[in-house]
């Protein structure tokens, strides 16, 4: 039975109606402020009383952060656009089909109705030691509880771990990287636009953050160029249950072929490291090759080079290899 934890500890709530107001509130309250988008990452922290912010800045009333604008150059998706809005949008479905596939794979219908694309890419790690309030590296401590001989790490990283072995849980992130999306971030020093793959950071850069966002920063929108519009897409998410569960491993690929050969490709996996992993070596290796079994096999083996499984997540290595193979083979195979 659920533990009803009574009410969430009190905080001051602000509901700004513009990005400027949100940023000025963030600037005033600094690290004491918690920025709330859809809320589905935040509520667990609050109810478990592990994060107790003094100030919550709720973005739900900021209209300029919502909606999808499509033009010849591509798409601009407001950070507060819900996953359901993204996956139902006709232009997104027609030209950028990998994004609705990824959004539809996330969580449950109700969560997709509420959860935002900005929140989905900015969500925190789901390692249960960390979420349970253990004083681990990611929480500012000096131990990783998952990476011990008895640590339960079935869902954890096989690549690029550095002290912390948590993984990025997002489904839309790999799809957005495959589409070569740009993330628009506003902060105290103005606006900057970063490549999707550079938005996510691993523990080597900052062990307490999953993204480049620092206190005072706000992800305002995601721009998708038309470069990969209408290309061949592949998205697949492996997970324990069909609903709610985060990916054990997911894969996203955008492929343009000329004749039978792969002309250009972007290939990304998530659920294997603290950030989505773009497989640039595999991309280079399969370029000019046909989408067949031989290429898929080579790509799969290359993808898992350097993988270092923990005690209980060895299965992720062949899982990642097989998902990459399926992505290279494509939907037809």
């Amino acid at each position, binding site marked *: 039975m*659920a*533990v*009803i*934890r*009574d*009410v*969430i*500890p*009190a*905080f*001051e*709530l*602000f*509901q*700004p*109606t*513009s990005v400027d*107001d*949100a940023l*000025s*509130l963030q600037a*005033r*309250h600094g690290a004491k402020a918690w920025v*709330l988008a859809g*809320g*589905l990452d935040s*509520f*667990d922290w*609050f*109810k478990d009383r592990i994060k107790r912010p*003094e*100030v*919550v*800045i*709720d973005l*739900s*009333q900021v209209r300029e952060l919502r909606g999808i604008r499509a033009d010849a150059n591509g798409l601009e998706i407001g950070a507060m656009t819900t996953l*359901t809005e993204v996956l139902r949008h006709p232009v997104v479905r027609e030209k950028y089909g990998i994004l609705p596939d990824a959004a539809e794979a996330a*969580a*449950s*219908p*109700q*969560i997709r*109705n*509420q959860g935002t694309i900005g929140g989905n890419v900015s969500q925190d790690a789901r390692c249960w030691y960390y979420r349970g309030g253990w004083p681990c590296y990611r929480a500012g401590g000096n131990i990783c509880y998952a990476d011990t001989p008895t640590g339960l790490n079935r869902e954890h990283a096989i690549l690029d771990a550095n002290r912390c072995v948590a993984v990025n849980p997002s489904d839309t992130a790999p799809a957005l990287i495959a589409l070569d999306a740009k993330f628009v971030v506003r902060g105290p020093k103005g606006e900057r636009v970063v490549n999707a793959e550079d938005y996510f950071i691993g523990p080597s850069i900052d062990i307490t953050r999953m993204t480049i966002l620092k206190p005072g920063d706000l992800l305002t929108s995601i721009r998708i160029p038309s470069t990969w519009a209408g290309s061949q897409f592949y998205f697949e998410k492996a997970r324990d249950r*069909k*609903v*709610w569960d985060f990916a054990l491993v997911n894969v996203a690929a955008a492929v343009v072929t000329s004749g039978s050969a792969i002309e250009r490709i972007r290939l990304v996996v998530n659920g294997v490291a603290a950030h989505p992993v773009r497989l640039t070596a595999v991309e280079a290796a399969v370029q000019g090759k046909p989408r067949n079994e031989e290429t898929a096999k080579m790509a799969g083996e290359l993808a898992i080079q350097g993988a270092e499984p923990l005690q209980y997540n060895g299965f992720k290595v062949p899982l990642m290899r097989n998902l990459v193979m399926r992505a290279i083979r494509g939907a037809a195979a």
Partner: protein
Amino acid sequence: MAENELADPRTSDSNTISRRDVIKSVIAAGAVSSTSYLFRVSKVWGQASAPGAVDRLITLNVNGQDRRVDVMKQETLVMTLRYKLGLTGTKIGCDQAECGACTVLIDDVPYYSCSVFTHTVRDKKIQTIEGLAKPDGTLHPVQQGVIDQQGFQCAFCMSGFVMATVGYLKTNPNPTRTELAHGISGNLCRCQDYDKILTAMMRGAEHLRKA
């Protein structure tokens, strides 16, 4: 610092306002939350004129009625519905967006009311299971479907399932069984009665199309 005593008004006995009064009255509950608010976050008190500052006393449109209610900043919608407005048809199952028992419609879209701050839905139309039947008692077609097919065993999850189905049918009034199963996959039934539930919901959809 009185923070620990006052941070949690529902369990605090040390308050000057008696606990009995608090429980009895919505207004008193608001008074306590206002005290806790003063003590807990005193550092930002006095900035009420800041952009986006929030009033505790709000109007919620629930089941077609405007209801004045005093809402704590950190209060979830299911708490407001059940314990301030007395709408206990909405259930709390997991309280962490993983079971669907608390599903309500907000502007016709299904949400987990355990994971929505009440303050974020001030300007929206909220519908709960209590708002489905007509004033004369005629059941909503989906509710009738549940009765026709004896859709549930213990039925704790029922109001959530019914609300999720009513919401889903607004986007797809004529679903296949598979589509409906996907559409209401955000709800759990611990009796594992999914087959019967789906049959009932399909019957409800049929009733709704004829209505």
